[in-house]
């Protein structure tokens, strides 16, 4: 079974800096494979291992995604090959543009059985791209997929919903977005890391995809601001539990919470 796994790079949340005016700086942020996409990669690799076939990883974005270390990181986690659509016009691409470009790249890649996406991107977490991509490709599309098994050329999948687990048979090809609990991502060892640099990587630009002007951002980001941080009051209430509870109620009333 040939699997295509889509992923997005995201800044390490711990490296994001909030400036005094509340604006966000990513200048010092280390970028990595989106934490929700790691599970999709693992699911794709397991599916290919179980059924025989190959895994192609796919990402679209500005030059930043063409990072040598991150390409090795990705390929050391099991995919057989990697395709990147690299174009500065994809900087801060919205979900619609990302889905359009992914869909066209997938058509260009040729025959496949299943496309896997993560639950959402690790930075914006709109959870839209997988669904829009399926629609663009005109294929059966599901999100919240927490288990995938192959059976007689189709997939039996479980969807974790709020009150129930839905079990569905999905004809192929299909586009699935997987949840974070589907699998724990594997940790590559030295063997896999060394092999990664020998795996094939294709690099395309938007011009290679014949998109006929369809590749446009529809969202304009005016500004991004972090919420104001309130100073914690750090009040320690001494006394017995009863006295402390009374004092706590007093504080909460004073603050207008009760």
């Amino acid at each position: 079974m040939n699997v295509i796994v889509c992923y997005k790079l995201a800044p390490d949340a711990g490296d994001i800096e909030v400036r005094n005016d509340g604006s966000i700086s990513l200048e010092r942020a280390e970028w990595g494979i989106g934490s929700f996409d790691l599970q999709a990669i693992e699911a794709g690799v397991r599916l290919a291992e179980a059924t025989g076939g190959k895994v192609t990883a796919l990402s679209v974005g500005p030059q930043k995604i063409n990072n040598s270390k991150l390409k090795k990181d990705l390929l050391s986690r099991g995919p057989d090959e990697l395709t990147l659509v690299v174009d500065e016009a994809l900087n801060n691409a919205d979900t619609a543009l990302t889905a359009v470009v992914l869909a066209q790249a997938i058509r260009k890649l040729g025959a496949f059985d299943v496309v896997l996406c993560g639950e959402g991107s690790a930075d914006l977490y709109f959870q839209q791209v997988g669904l829009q991509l399926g629609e663009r490709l005109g294929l059966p599309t599901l999100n919240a997929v927490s288990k995938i098994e192959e059976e007689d050329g189709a997939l039996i999948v479980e969807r974790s919903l709020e009150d129930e687990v839905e079990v569905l048979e999905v004809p192929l090809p299909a586009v699935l977005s997987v949840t974070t609990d589907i699998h724990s991502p594997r940790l590559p060892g030295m063997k896999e890391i060394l092999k990664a640099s020998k795996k094939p990587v294709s690099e395309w630009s938007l011009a290679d995809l014949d998109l006929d002007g369809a590749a446009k951002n529809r969202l304009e980001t005016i500004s991004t601001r972090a919420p104001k941080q309130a100073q914690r009051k750090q009040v320690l209430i001494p006394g017995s539990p009863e006295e402390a509870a009374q004092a706590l109620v007093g504080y909460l009333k004073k603050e207008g919470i009760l």
Partner: protein
Amino acid sequence: MDFRMTEEQELLIQSLEELLEREAPESLMAELDEKKEFPYQSWQALADHGILGLGIPEEYGGTPADIMTMTLVCETLGKYAFPLGIVYSLGMITILDIVQFGSKEIKAEVLGGFVQGDPPVALGITEPQAGSDSAALKTRADFDGEDVIFNGQKMYCTLSKQAKYILLMTRDSKIENPYEGISMWMVPTDSPGLRFNQVSKLGWWSVPTYEVYIENTRVPKKSLVGEMNCGWPQLMANFEIERLALCAASVGAAEAAFEDAAAYANQRVQFGKPIGSFQAVQHILTDMAVKIENMRNYIYKIAWMMDNDQPVRLEHALCKLYVARAAFEVCDDAMQILGGLGYTTDHRVQRLWRDVRLMRIGGGTDEIMYNIAGPQILKRAKKERG
């Protein structure tokens, strides 16, 4: 000079850090230390991850790796789970001796098993009368047909009960020069005639040490590793790597102690402010940071020299001497900053303090390092003067 890690090294270390957080968390290390149990489960996780195969030929399931990469691995193990760093470092000398001198049969059995998760081969060299003076050993090997029979006693034989084999050093007393009469043998630890008596230690509780009594223990002659009576130079061939590995693990332990101390200095409030705001504490932390930086530079330089086939006889002795002391000083300073908490058994700093103290003794004492370095320094000075 390029101080950057390769991309492959960065990825390996990131992956190893995540593995250790999953498979060797501090809570588990503390529990095993208290129970004085070997970290079998975490060790197996290292094997499954391919870490134990680093530096072992691919035909035995290993992966080629340079000494710099193995040094980085030791440092990371030391930082996240010091006992694993010790075990890995102790394994280096015996495992690399087998890679270099073992017969095909021994390599297939021992290296194959190690890569799959066997504890490392224990080194049986020290004896009651032969500590730093290793060549004074008395354990003997007598031949009987196709077999060899051992008699003697070994001290401080770490992991000998957990290991499947001991790399046993024996001496032929008929050869006058002890360095020309020592041989190296691969002895299964379940051989009849071997008796183990656990040594009670101040630290290294997850890495048990034993006295081994050897009475008429018989193995086939083919258990010889390398050449007869060439055991001493064979052992010395990889002593420097073991010392470097122990140093790297110690640097990792010092980094862990430093991070605990720095975090505590920011968090602990006394006299109305964090104790880190007091100059007295800042000075201690700064001295610790300088030592860590120096230690790291030292071990990386030695690793680079070894990877580039440069002699390190003087440098490794200086490095071992410095790191063993500085790493302990950093742990001691961390305990000072943590105050009463650092002295309690609830905190890992006391464990690092106990564990790292051995580094001034094990793998060659400070005094032996002086003995190695001193003549080399004088020899080099003479050479430079022409």
